[in-house]
């Protein structure tokens, strides 16, 4: 039984198709990344997991509980941090967390609330009114609110947007420790570097569909490569290298290399040819590149499928 089980979920908002048949299983203890451009359907999917959106077709279950039929158990099993910063201006931070505990039927939760406040660097603000907090602090209170009932599944919808670097680190250290303690994490973010560091498996969405789903390592291996980038000082690239290399702006060349041995080889070729290297760097595979390639592939596929444009496309391929 997966921690989150999404099967054939479809959702339309009027003429807009937000989810066009999404099937996805997130296993227990995974740190799972859900990536995609704005409007891909990530937030709609998260809303459906939390029962905030009702799908037109398909089913969703959290820890084996159907989100519609067994909504009480399903909602106890999941903690969602919504994307928009929202708060109730009537209450202080501690009141907010006590009320949220109460909604889950938890009476004596002070010890865990104190721990949450401490882990999220909010202890000093416990008795401050929500209105007086900065955006980053409000967001951390939202994280605490999602965790008051110690849910086995934690969903974070762009939790680091607008949060400064230091606090971002605090947040990730805490979320990582929760993941290490067995909590399943589902994360959406636009910071692909973050996703690459944190997530063991990644799904990419576009136009309401999952267009890529694999382990982070395999995605990187399939769509990105290690490259040697060199900037030459007023000389040509040796001919042996021009076959694989591509020229970039500013006199840089981009030479794909599989391992360190390839780097040595390429440098040896450059030396032999007497090329003067002005600058060089080895770039590791990047999720950003994977993302861009997959999204471009999908955009082309969409054009191909559209009626009446196949001839036009031939010129660009």
């Amino acid at each position, binding site marked *: 039984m997966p921690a989150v089980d999404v099967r054939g979920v479809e959702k339309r908002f009027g003429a807009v198709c937000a989810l066009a048949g999404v099937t996805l299983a997130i296993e227990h203890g995974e740190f799972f990344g859900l990536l995609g451009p704005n409007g891909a359907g990530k937030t709609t999917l998260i809303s459906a997991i939390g029962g905030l959106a009702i799908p037109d077709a398909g089913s969703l279950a959290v820890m084996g509980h159907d989100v519609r039929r067994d909504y009480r158990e399903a909602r106890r099993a999941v903690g969602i941090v919504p994307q928009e910063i929202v708060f109730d201006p009537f209450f202080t931070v501690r009141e907010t967390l006590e009320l949220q505990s109460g909604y*889950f039927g938890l009476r004596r939760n002070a010890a865990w609330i104190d721990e949450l406040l401490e882990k999220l660097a909010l202890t000093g603000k416990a008795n401050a009114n929500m209105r007086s907090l900065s955006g980053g602090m409000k967001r951390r209170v939202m994280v605490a609110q999602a965790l008051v009932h110690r849910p086995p599944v934690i969903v974070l919808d762009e939790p680091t947007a607008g949060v400064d670097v230091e606090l971002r680190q605090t947040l990730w250290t805490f979320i990582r420790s929760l993941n290490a303690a067995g909590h399943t994490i589902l994360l959406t973010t636009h910071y692909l570097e973050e996703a690459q560091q944190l997530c063991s498996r990644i799904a990419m969405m576009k136009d309401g569909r999952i267009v890529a789903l694999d382990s982070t390592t395999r995605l990187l291996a399939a769509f990105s490569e290690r490259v040697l980038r060199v900037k030459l000082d007023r000389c040509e690239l040796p001919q042996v290298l021009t076959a694989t290399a591509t020229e970039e702006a500013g006199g840089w060349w981009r030479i794909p290399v599989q391992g360190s041995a390839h780097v040595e080889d390429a440098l040896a070729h450059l030396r032999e040819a007497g090329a003067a290297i002005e600058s060089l760097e080895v770039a590791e595979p990047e999720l950003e590149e994977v993302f861009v390639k997959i999204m471009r592939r999908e955009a082309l596929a969409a054009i191909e499928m559209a009626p009446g444009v196949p001839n036009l496309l031939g010129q660009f391929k």
Partner: protein
Amino acid sequence: MSGFATLLYKEVLRFWKVGFQTVAAPVLSTLLYLLVFAHALSSHVQVFPGVTYMQFLVPGLAMMSMLQNAFANSSSSLIQSKITGNIVFILLPPLAPAELFLAYLLAAIVRAMVVGAGVFLATVWMVPLPLAHPFWALAFALVGSGLLAALGIIAGIWVEKFDQLAAFQNFIVMPLTFLAGVFYSVQTLPPFWQAVSRLNPFFYAVDGFRYGFFGEADVAPAASLAIATGAFAALSWLTLFLLQRGYKLRH
């Protein structure tokens, strides 16, 4: 504490924290109505024998302000939560539709009762009132404010902007409460307007409530209570139906 009890507590705390706006202000405006109308009309009107116009006015005004505040509490709380977006903190926990309904309903009734008690406390020293049938008065206070509390939940779910809520409040709730026989006995109206008044469910709440004090009413109190309770039950059913469907709350 159960989820329901917490939500009820939060809803009561919400209006209590801004008590000047939600309790003191309506009590004061009711007092102003009383002073102005009583001064302007007291020499011309006597509705029930042995009951001064001032006395006649107090229960009606109290009920009017209870009805309006019950509506204001549930509707404004919901629309504020919807517009600011913090309604998600109530929609994500495992709260049943019936729990949501009862918490918003009871909090609005509590506010109505506090405002009603405030009106009596503020007027008792200048307008002594009989209390012929306290239990009838209490029953009508509860059913009347429950009716408007449920209507407030429906309005809060339905409207999307403060402007729409203001329209609901000013074009439906205000006229219906003002014309519910608060300032006059409907017996004094021409037959057509009497018939129209009897279509207004709020009228039965005001009339029955007044019976609790003076032992006299335009309509038999049992009939009034049955009608008001029927209207309350119908609106409660509709509210629960909307909440169960997630209408305008879960998309």
